[in-house]
């Protein structure tokens, strides 16, 4: 896309890539960049970012979580907005950093100011940038899982559905219990594999019962969990991050699939 000359009036958005997107599925990051640019933003990706610190925070390791939080805040200095293609990471940045850094007045103020600039990708597009449709094709019946942090910490519910409604060829079929956790829970799925499995089994049964071609969600962690379970169960349902579909970038094989699977 050609660089515009009016960049001074365009908001500067720092993309918080999230470690899973960075490592596992960069295509989600590029889809996010495209959507943000389509929404009239200038996007940059600070190299100094790593992880939001959630694994440490949720394991009780406050010291490391604080260090990572301060690192993230510093990495995104100077941006008008910080946007993440994940409700979980955005929730960490927006709601948990102020809590985590609340003890020290200076960091608390930094965290508070930072928090105001943080958004989850899809809600940013709709609620902040006033996006109400996208130019994209996806010939598919999809179902949408509401990831927990996005839904309950950030109020992401109607925004993805609103944009999905404008995708050519796409039909949304809602599953039962779309708002119930998939059992991923970050380190939970490793610490309590049997319980996590029981929860994701219920989820994939609900997904299958809505008979979609494709499962969409806004968090890669949850998607990897559900996609991994569905492929183990031999279900012919693909899984994608909602940003890929909204950006019209669905050439890549779906999550956990190969080029051969796609053929």
């Amino acid at each position: 896309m050609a660089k515009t000359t009016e960049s001074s009036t365009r908001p500067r958005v720092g993309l918080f890539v999230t470690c899973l997107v960075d490592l596992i599925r960069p295509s989600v990051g590029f889809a996010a960049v495209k959507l943000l640019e389509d929404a009239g933003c200038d996007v940059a990706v600070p190299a100094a970012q790593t992880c939001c610190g959630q694994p440490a925070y949720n394991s009780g390791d406050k010291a490391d979580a604080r260090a990572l939080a301060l690192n993230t805040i510093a990495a995104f200095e100077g941006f008008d907005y910080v946007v993440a293609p994940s409700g979980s990471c955005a929730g960490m940045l927006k709601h948990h950093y102020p809590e985590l850094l609340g003890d020290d007045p200076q960091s608390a103020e930094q965290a508070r100011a930072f928090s105001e600039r943080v958004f989850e990708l899809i809600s940013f597009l709709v609620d902040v940038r006033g996006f109400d449709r996208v130019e994209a094709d996806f010939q598919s019946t999809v179902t949408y899982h509401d990831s927990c942090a996005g839904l309950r910490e950030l109020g992401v519910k109607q925004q993805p559905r609103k944009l999905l409604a404008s995708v050519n060829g796409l039909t949304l079929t809602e599953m039962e219990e779309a708002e119930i956790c998939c059992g991923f829970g970050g380190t939970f799925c490793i610490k309590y594999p049997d319980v996590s499995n029981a929860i994701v089994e219920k989820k994939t049964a609900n997904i299958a019962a809505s008979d979609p071609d494709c499962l969409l969600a806004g968090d890669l962690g949850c998607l990897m969990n559900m996609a991994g379970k569905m492929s183990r169960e031999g279900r012919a349902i693909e899984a994608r991050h909602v940003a890929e579909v909204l950006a019209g970038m669905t050439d890549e094989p779906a999550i956990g699939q190969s080029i051969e699977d796609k053929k």
Partner: protein
Amino acid sequence: MKPTSHAFKSNAKEALGNEPLRRALGGIKRGFVANRARARANLPEFEDLRDEAKAVKEHTLAHLDLYLEAYEKKVVETGGHVHWASSADDARAAILKICRDAGAKTVTKGKSMVGEEIAINEHLEQAGITPVETDLGEYLIQLRHEPPSHIIAPAIHLTKDQVEADFRKTHTELSPERVLEEPEQLVSEARAILREKFLAADVGITGANLLIAETGTSVIVTNEGNGDLTQCLPRIHIVITSIEKVVPTLEDADTILRVLARSATGQEFSTYTTFTTGPKREGDLDGPDEYHVVLLDNGRSEMLGGEFHDMLRCIRCGACMNHCPVYGAVGGHAYGWVYPGPMGAVLTPTLIGVGEAGHLPNASTFCGRCESVCPMRIPLPKMMRHWREREYENGDTPALYKAGLKLWAFAAKRPALYHRLTGLVSPLLSRFGRKGRFASMPLAGGWTDHRDLPAPQGKTFQQRWRERETRR
């Protein structure tokens, strides 16, 4: 009872293999959860009432000493007795003394979670006094010598076939030919058996959902009416309750009652809500001669003003467990003690120690559904995290897990190193994961035992982005 919270993992595994239990837990969604959603939808002010209920409790907790004194004064004025119990031992001793002084042989009991917490039944039995649980669910689990598996539906894990078998084994005075197929028949039999117990009991013990400082009143909420028969028939009524149950006025009680049943069973109001103030009055034809309140602390005062302060707002409605995916998968017994689910994950470590109950605050996905339905807006995930922090500080986090976490954090705090490492690992894994996924992977058995692990696409996003930026 001896806790088995330390064995959460094996308890959970056993529960997951228990088909009748999983069917029973599946029913919560159609029952409690659907009913709560309907009750909430039918009351436009519900969310505001949650804020008000929280405010009532916060005001009370900030003045707890004074409200307890005001409450006590009224209880005494109306002819009752208050017994202050700092520990479970103190409470048991106070109850036992009242029963002994009365020469009690049998005690009927309404449902009381504080009673479970101090294991009062075991204690009475050891003293030669027979306690009879009269809430149907509590009666069913008493027959089986089990703890409750849910705080408002203690026998939710049982099937009617199991109940039938227990009744045939216990009620041997009845005809073996009798038909006990339907819940109605089982309820009817329990009603007849327990009716005799109500009429014969020397002492009745109930819990309290609320205490009211204005009037010195204790409040119980039931659907069966068992709590009322427990307290209005015997000569002595003992209320076992805890200090955080007090609210200032009847108006404050109204606010909490408006959210309690709606959050618990999804009823707008429970069938029976009973306000009790003191013993029998002059001219009364029924009611107890003596009215005692045992006020238990048992660690609660220590929670005041600290990291777990918010937990003192809990009104024991059970909404958190009804909406919890983990509770929904494993049920209450896996938690290994009296209080299961999210509220138990916070409360149990304070009562029996985080050494025994350390798993409970960890066994959560932090999905936040508990907090989103809690009528008292208790930040349950946040407090579970506080327990994890304490465990981490105490060195109770498993060593291998901690080592992995430390290694990861070491790299994540050094962005240049981190991106060099991930830039090596992602493409490498991608090459091995040609099929787009791994069916197994060393050190990731927790994941790959149950599901495939999606493989990376190749280079990291950061690598690709830098390449793209260079090209532009």
